[in-house]
């Protein structure tokens, strides 16, 4: 590659980043919870250790990007031994896959404070594209991102067929950050 072209790309790239830097949202707090039906009863759980990199400007959502990681070893469902099981290779296999990753490919506005993002979600060694709706509310100079979506746990190799445990898991994420 000729040197000049390379330099050009480099310049453009740096420019693009700096152009967006002012849209950086600094994460203040996060909550990740999920609900799954086990024998007809809702089991609530949570995960911690979220890190996120958010570039978001409500006026130009399509220019933004959201990525984050989550630590599946922090899973809590209220029963210690169940948590331990969820960490082993039948489920999250946290030893080999210490991070759940999410990365937006595109974000767009729907209406009002409602948005939609196409994300790649990586759990263990399985990566799938999911589309998820989210809302962004501004409160006390903070952005609050809220999303709630469902995935099929078996799409990500989380456990086997079960007549007791449902396949669909509902996931709720709330991120609070300062622009």
């Amino acid at each position, binding site marked *: 590659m000729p040197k000049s072209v390379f330099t050009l790309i480099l310049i453009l790239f740096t420019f693009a980043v700096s152009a967006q830097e002012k849209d950086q949202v600094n994460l203040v707090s996060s909550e990740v919870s999920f609900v799954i039906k086990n*024998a007809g*009863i809702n089991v609530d759980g949570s995960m911690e250790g979220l890190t996120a990199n958010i570039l978001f400007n409500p006026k130009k959502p399509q220019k933004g990007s959201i990525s984050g990681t989550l630590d599946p070893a922090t899973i809590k469902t209220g*029963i210690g031994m*169940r948590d331990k099981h969820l960490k082993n*290779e039948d489920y999250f296999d946290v030893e080999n896959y210490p991070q759940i990753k999410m990365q937006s490919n595109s974000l767009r506005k729907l209406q009002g404070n409602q948005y939609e993002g196409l994300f790649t979600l990586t759990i263990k060694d399985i990566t799938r594209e999911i589309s998820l709706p989210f809302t962004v509310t501004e409160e006390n100079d903070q952005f609050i991102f809220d999303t709630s979506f469902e995935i099929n746990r078996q799409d990500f190799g989380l456990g086997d067929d079960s007549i007791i445990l449902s396949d669909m898991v509902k996931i709720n994420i709330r991120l609070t950050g300062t622009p």
Partner: protein
Amino acid sequence: MKKIKYALAILLPGAALLILLAITSSKKIDIPKTWDMEEIKRFHLHPPNRNVKVKYVPEDIYYNLKEFVLYKNYPLYVKEYEPENYQDSLASLAPEIAVDFSKLVTEEDWIKAGKLVFNMPASLTPANTPLFLDSAFINLTGLEMLPDGEYPYGRYVQTPEGLMRGILSCASCHTKVTEDGELIEGGQGDFIFDRQFGFIVERFSIPIPPDPDGSVVFAPWVDYDERFKKWTSKDQKLALKAIPPGVMVRQGGGVISPIAIPSLFGIKDIKYMDRTGLMKHENIGDLMRYAAFNQGLDMFNKYDDYIPMSGFESHEQITPEEEWSHPFGYANRRYSDEQLYALAKYVYSLEPPENPNKFSAELLERGEVIFAEQGCVTCHPPPLFTNNKLLPATSDFEIPEEDKQELDIFNISVETDPFLAMKTRRGTGYYKVPSLRGAWMREAFFHNGNLASVEDVLDPARLEESYVPTGFKPHDLETMAVKGHPFGLELNKEDKSALVAYIKSL
């Protein structure tokens, strides 16, 4: 119309042929071969130590053994209850073979014959050898008998060699006598065989070798804890006497790890037999093999160079003549395949007694919700109340790759005491999830039967070192934690009673 006639012309002879086939094939029953080496290798699990090579008795040597002869047999009574001249009248009878297996046709025929096999003692001694079976002994040991004084764990057998007293039938260990004196065949056995044996060896100062040197328990790959190495012959007796009803010493586990006796109801749906899942249960032949192994042949499994049956160093030594020295006293005989088939049919036919517990619908509904909320339902799901899976006995057990392919494993340990699964010949590295069906009529819970009730399973106090086990408590420990299975321990009183009620309704 023509078309219909044409179809009939084809269909009618076809149907007739099918009916004919059905009739002829129902006559000829396909009895599985018990000692089929391919099947044995499939159904028998490996010890937790993968380096140990296990060899089973070769087919030809097994089939060369003499078969048990199923003679007609008669009730045994506690001394004071025996009818006058009872033994003499039995001795005057001609020995009679109880079943002609070639004449069995219907399912009911086989089941009826199987009941006789179930009750057929495997170990016989002449009836005139002294017996300690009197009321004093009964009171001392707490043994249950029937209201008319019958001792349902043994039988008299009239043989060509004379009148014999026999024990160690399947019924000896798999019969329960309720407080009302009702006999439940297939219920969790309550014959205190070990306690009785302990009393006898103590009373008559019979020397018995200290385990773990004894062939009942020794596993050559195990490094025993200091606690057991110190055990003397006296410990052995005390250990036997400490074993409560519902728990039993089984060869391979021995006195250092006696085992809760299962109830046999609903066994047809259970995929792994024994607490450690030692034998798979995929077809009726597996149950036949189970019986053959457990009534003597497992003492001849060869673990590297070690054969548990004392005096035997190679399989070639096993002949129809060579006496066995099984401490449980088994004869050197095998069941015929017909006997085992009938036996298995009978075991499958066993029906549990009606559950006398009556709980309100509300309580049971609440209990069912808690059962789900507490996660019990994951391992004990209806309708069997077991997921029929094996769990590693300890988190330290590394599950071998081939097991992941061949076994149905639920990969989390409930961390109950791993000894039986890791350090005995019954060990596999796993415990199965026991079914909770019929828990209402059982009195020994967890694999060693350390707990005597469902309530105790849910009692958090059992996790403390200061706990006094309500079921089996080893003689050399004052107190002991019954650890693991930490589910449902933190419930409030109401929720716990609802959960207990629910379990006792199953």
